[in-house]
C-alpha cells in the first residue's frame, strides 16, 4: 500500500455559533492553525494550490470563494479550486487535491472546507440544505432533508426492527465524545430520554437525532509522501480513497435502507489500502442524522447489513469499544458546517493517528477511516489513513 499523499499538518476553527465571523474569517482561523502547527512549512514558498469545499453561496450571498479564501490566507496568486458535493464538499476537494499530488502537478497543497450558517434562521437553513435534494420531486412536495432521512429510518425500522432508542443512543454516544472535544459545538452530555422526548422534526427523527446548524472551517496540509518528513516527523498517510454516486433523489433507488454510494466508495478505499474493516482502529462517519450513522456501520462493514442498531446497543462504537466512531463528537455534537465536515473528519483522524486527541485519544491506533456523504448519500466519499511515523 503505497501512500497517495501525506497529511503533515491540520487546522480547525472552533465549531459552533461564531457570531459576526464569516466564511473567509473562519477559514483563515483554520488555515492559521495548520500553518502554525507546522513550523517547517513556509506557506508562501511551499504551498502550490488551494482546494476548498463549500456547499452554498446562499448563506452569505457570496460565490467565487476560491480566490477569496486564497487571498485571505495570504497565498495569492496560486491556483485555487472550489468543489461542491453538498455535505461531502470538502471530501470531494480532498480527492481533487489527491489527484493533483498523484499526478505530480503539485507537491504541497492546502485543502479545506467551510460553511457559515448560524446567521440564517432555522427555516432558511432548512431551505438552503433542501437545495441538495431533488427540486421537482422532493422539494416541490414538501419533503425536507430530515424528511428524506426520516423515510430511510422508517424503512430501516420496518425492515430490520431498528428502534428509536437505538437511534437515540447514537446521539448520546456522540455527545459523550463531543464533551471531550474543546472545538465541538456541543460539549454537553445528553441522555436517551432527552433525545426521545425532544421535539419531533421528521418522524421518527427528533431534534436530538439531527445535527445542529454550525459555523466552522477545517483544513489539512497535504504533501507528496516522499517529502512529508521534511515537514514533520509524524505524518499521516492517506492510503485509500474512494468515491461513488447514487441518484440525487431517494425515491429512484431500489432500497431505502442502504447508502450504495458509501458502500462502493468504501470498497474502493479498502481495496486500494489493502486493509479490511476489522483493521480500522478509529472512524469518523457521517451522522447528519442518527440513522445515517447506523447505515454507515453497515455500509463500511463494521457490522452486517441490518445489524447497525445492535452494534450501537453493544457499545462497540463508543470510546473504549472495539471500533470507536466519531470520537470528535461527529456532526451531531461537533457540529456540521456543511462544507467543513469532510476535512474536519480527516482532521480528527490526523489527531488520533498522531496521538494529539487528548482526552478522547484511542490507544495504539494505526488505521483510521472517514466516511462523508452528500445529500441523501448521492455522493459518497471514503478515505483510509495510516500512521506515517
Amino acid at each position, binding site marked *: 500500500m503505497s501512500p497517495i499523499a501525506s497529511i503533515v499538518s491540520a487546522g480547525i476553527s472552533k465549531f459552533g455559533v461564531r457570531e459576526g465571523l464569516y466564511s473567509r474569517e473562519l477559514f483563515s482561523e483554520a488555515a492559521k492553525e495548520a500553518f502554525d502547527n507546522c513550523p517547517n512549512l513556509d506557506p508562501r514558498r511551499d504551498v502550490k494550490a488551494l482546494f476548498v469545499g463549500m456547499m452554498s453561496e446562499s448563506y452569505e450571498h457570496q460565490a467565487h470563494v476560491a480566490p477569496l479564501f486564497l487571498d485571505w490566507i495570504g497565498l495569492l496568486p496560486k491556483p485555487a479550486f472550489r468543489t461542491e458535493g453538498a455535505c461531502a464538499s470538502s471530501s470531494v476537494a480532498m480527492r481533487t487535491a489527491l489527484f493533483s499530488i498523484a499526478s505530480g502537478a503539485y507537491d504541497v497543497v492546502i485543502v479545506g472546507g467551510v460553511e457559515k450558517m448560524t446567521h440564517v434562521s432555522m427555516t432558511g437553513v432548512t431551505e438552503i440544505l433542501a437545495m441538495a435534494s431533488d427540486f421537482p420531486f422532493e422539494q416541490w412536495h414538501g419533503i425536507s432533508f430530515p424528511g428524506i432521512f426520516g423515510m430511510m429510518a*422508517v424503512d430501516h425500522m420496518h425492515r430490520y426492527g431498528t428502534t428509536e432508542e437505538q437511534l437515540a443512543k447514537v446521539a448520546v454516544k456522540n455527545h459523550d465524545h463531543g464533551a471531550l472535544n474543546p472545538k465541538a459545538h456541543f460539549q454537553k452530555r445528553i441522555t436517551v430520554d432527552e433525545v426521545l422526548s425532544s421535539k419531533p422534526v421528521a418522524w421518527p427523527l427528533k431534534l436530538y437525532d439531527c445535527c445542529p446548524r454550525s459555523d466552522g472551517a477545517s483544513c489539512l496540509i497535504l504533501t507528496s509522501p516522499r517529502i512529508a518528513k521534511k515537514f514533520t516527523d509524524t505524518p499521516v498517510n492517506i492510503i485509500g480513497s474512494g468515491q461513488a454516486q447514487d441518484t440525487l433523489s431517494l425515491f429512484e433507488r431500489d432500497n431505502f435502507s442502504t447508502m450504495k454510494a458509501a458502500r462502493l466508495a468504501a470498497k474502493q478505499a479498502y481495496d486500494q489500502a489493502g486493509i479490511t474493516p476489522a483493521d480500522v482502529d478509529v472512524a469518523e462517519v457521517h451522522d447528519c442524522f442518527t440513522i445515517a450513522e447506523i447505515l454507515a456501520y453497515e455500509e463500511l462493514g463494521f457490522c452486517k447489513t441490518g445489524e447497525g442498531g445492535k452494534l450501537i446497543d453493544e457499545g462497540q462504537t463508543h470510546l473504549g469499544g472495539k471500533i470507536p466512531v466519531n470520537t470528535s463528537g461527529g456532526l451531531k455534537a461537533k457540529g456540521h458546517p456543511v462544507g467543513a465536515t469532510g476535512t474536519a473528519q480527516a482532521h480528527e483522524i490526523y489527531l488520533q493517528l498522531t496521538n494529539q486527541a487528548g482526552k478522547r485519544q484511542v490507544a495504539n491506533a494505526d488505521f483510521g477511516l472517514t466516511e462523508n456523504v452528500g445529500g441523501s448519500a448521492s455522493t459518497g466519499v471514503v478515505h483510509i489513513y495510516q500512521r506515517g511515523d
Partner: protein
Amino acid sequence: MSKTMTREASKDFVRDAHGEILPIIENFYSYCAEGKLMGIKCVGCGQIMCPPRAICRNCLSDKYEWVELKERGKLVTYTIIYFPPTQFQLLAPYAVGISKLDDGPHLPGMIKNVKLEEITIGMPLRVDYETVIPKDWPRWARYFFKPA
C-alpha cells in the same frame, strides 16, 4: 388566489419539431394538470420511467413512448414532517412517502385524506391531483397520494 390559475388555463405541452410531446418533467406536470399520471416506456428495452427522462436509465436509448400509468401503488416508506420548509408551514404536521406504483416505478409525494396515525407501510395508495396551478415558475400541478 391571484397567484393561481385553473386547469382550463394550463399551458401547452413542450414539443419537438415534429410535434411530439418531449419526455421532460415540464410535460409530466402538464399531464398532471389534466389529471393523468404519465410515464415513458423506452422503445429500446421496455423500461418504464416516471418521471420521464431524455436518456433511458437502463439502456441509454433516447427512443420513447408516453404511457399512461395506473394510479395505484403501495406505500413503501414515509415520514411525518413537523418542521417544514416555509411554503408548507400551514400544512404541518403532514405525511410524505414513497409509493411503489403497480406499473413499477417509485414516486414520492404527500399523503393526504388520512389520519397520520393510520398510515402504515404497505397500505394501498391512489394518485390524485391538485386543481390549482401556480402562476409563476414552476407552473407544476402537484399530484398527491390518498388511501385507495
